[in-house]
């Protein structure tokens, strides 16, 4: 069976629930499919492809976001943490059915499964795309930051199939369509290839995090290399406390050891945020960072360099020392009553991932 006219979205699921990044990808896949139909005059279908121990209840809602079909490959051994088995099953499905395009959410799971599938079927994969389009030749155009973050570069996979891309949660929006009908479902019993017994799961520990996740914070205070020191970084933490926000960082700030950890980095290798308010201090505006914050609500940037690129992506520009502005802002917010017994209005930003 050849399904050259299919676009697949690989869905990550665990204990009967699926990661919402799937809906974001399905929304975009639906857009790609209609563009391909215009160009080629044939029908393109979007399939959500789930691998796991059982079918996922509620998956039918994917129809509303643009999925025409849901293919579930069930096997008792397809437990979440055996990424090797998921990849093996997906690779055989791809070889059997030959989709034109396969998209993965670049979660930790997807980032491990996607390159494995690509290597198995010997095709190209563009990692951490910040946009996907179809060009006039009907090829998938995958945009990634290039040349040290100064520009976005296209990656194409002109010959080998499928064309494969991974996209971080939050890059696309899940937009329900106005459509009537129901989703086609297909449940498969895949065969696990032999010899896949060299990995064994010994122990799983789920950690609960108490902080508002960066992707869900209504206010993001972001700091870059220009913040200058660990002491100054504390001012950003204080601001976040007053505003009920969460602190994010750029890569240099992470490398300096000022920031909270890898999961607080914003950008192509980190999180995509869309808070109501984004306050950036000492950030130059590399594309690697900008792609992770450009859709925020109100964007303030504080930088000593009046020509900093970040200002092109900001609503309000402050040309000044990060420390001086952060300290004054803290005093001002306290005087205005911020932070006094708050927690009331820590709303979610418009684009939360809401994983699982």
């Amino acid at each position: 069976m050849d399904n050259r006219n299919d676009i697949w979205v690989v869905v990550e699921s665990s204990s009967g629930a699926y990661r919402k990044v799937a809906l974001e990808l399905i929304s975009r896949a639906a857009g790609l499919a209609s563009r391909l139909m215009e160009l080629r005059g044939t029908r393109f279908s979007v399939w959500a492809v789930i691998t796991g121990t059982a079918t996922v209840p509620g998956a039918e809602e994917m129809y509303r976001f643009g999925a025409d079909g849901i293919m579930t490959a069930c096997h008792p051994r397809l437990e979440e943490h055996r990424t090797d088995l998921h990849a093996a099953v997906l690779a055989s499905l791809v070889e059997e059915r030959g989709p034109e395009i396969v998209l993965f959410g670049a979660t930790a799971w997807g980032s491990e499964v996607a390159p494995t599938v690509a290597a198995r079927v010997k095709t190209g994969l563009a990692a951490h795309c910040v946009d996907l389009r179809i060009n006039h030749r009907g090829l998938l155009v995958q945009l990634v930051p290039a040349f040290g973050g100064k520009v976005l570069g296209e990656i194409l996979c002109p010959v080998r199939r499928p064309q494969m891309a991974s996209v971080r949660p939050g890059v696309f929006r899940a937009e329900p369509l106005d459509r009537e009908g129901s989703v086609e479902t297909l449940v498969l019993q895949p065969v696990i290839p032999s010899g896949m017994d060299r990995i064994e799961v010994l122990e799983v520990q789920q950690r609960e995090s108490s902080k508002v996740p960066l992707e869900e914070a209504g206010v993001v205070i972001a700091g870059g290399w220009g913040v200058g020191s660990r002491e100054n970084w504390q001012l950003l933490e204080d601001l976040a406390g007053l505003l009920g926000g969460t602190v994010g960082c750029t890569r240099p700030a992470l490398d300096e050891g000022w920031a909270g950890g890898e999961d607080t980095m914003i950008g192509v290798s980190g999180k995509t945020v869309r808070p109501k308010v984004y306050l950036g201090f000492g950030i130059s505006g590399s594309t690697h960072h900008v792609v992770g914050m450009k859709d925020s609500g109100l964007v303030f940037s504080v930088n000593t360099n009046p020509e900093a690129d970040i200002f092109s992506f900001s609503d309000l520009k402050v040309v000044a020392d990060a420390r001086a502005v952060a300290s004054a802002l803290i005093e001002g917010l306290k005087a205005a009553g911020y932070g006094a017994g708050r927690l009331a209005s820590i709303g979610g930003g418009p684009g939360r991932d809401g994983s699982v």
Partner: protein
Amino acid sequence: MSAIRTVVCVKPVPSPEYAHQAGMDPVTKTLVRQGIPTVINPLDKNALEAALQIREKQGGEVLVLSMAPPAAVENLREALAMGADGAYLLSDRAFAGSDTLATSMVLASAVKKLGAVDLVLTGNESADGGTAQVSAQLGEWLGWPHLMHACGIEPGEDGHIAVDTARDNCRVKYRVKLPAVISVVRNINSPRFISISGVIAAGKKPLVRWTGGDLPLDGDFLGLEGSPTKAGDIHRPDPARRCELLEGSPEEVAAAMIEKIKSAGIQW
């Protein structure tokens, strides 16, 4: 417990201190890297440190492997000075333009040529490419089990290792049968500093250069030609914002910012 022969993949990346100097040639659309020194990809030093610790505990050998232009001998000397026993540089014009599938094919061919390798360690991702794909694909070319996001590696009994991984809010401990490919994250360890005696010792260690002709390559996946992905046009991200200037003393600026924050619906 038996000795473990580990290969660590190290990639030279442009030194972050010179990031500002890296420019783009507007005509050829290629990255201008001339005169920008390279360093070992930071996570690859963590991988090397993990390998050295395994050798200290378990005995064995640590070899470093890099597919890079000839100038990367400097980076490999640094790895030798850190404590690796030998280094292999894979340099050939035919490798230029390799994407991750082509790169991992070349690395896999070198691991095969070395033979009797128990463990391959890599960084989880490289600081310049950042694709985080090479390690899994290397595992596939070799047909070995592979895991990413390792924050702990413990050699175990009868040809197995225990690997702790950290993904999102989840830690998973695996038992993996060697040979295997494992990629590490930053918090697995703190790479050691180089000592003077390390530098001196490095001068006497083998640093071997292999070209394509020395390796059992898969010609269908070689270099630019054999890479499934191709680079297309480049775009400047379009700034969509007005960027109004807030002027005055820090206090005045802060007062103006607070007004805007309030109007954006952020209350106290």
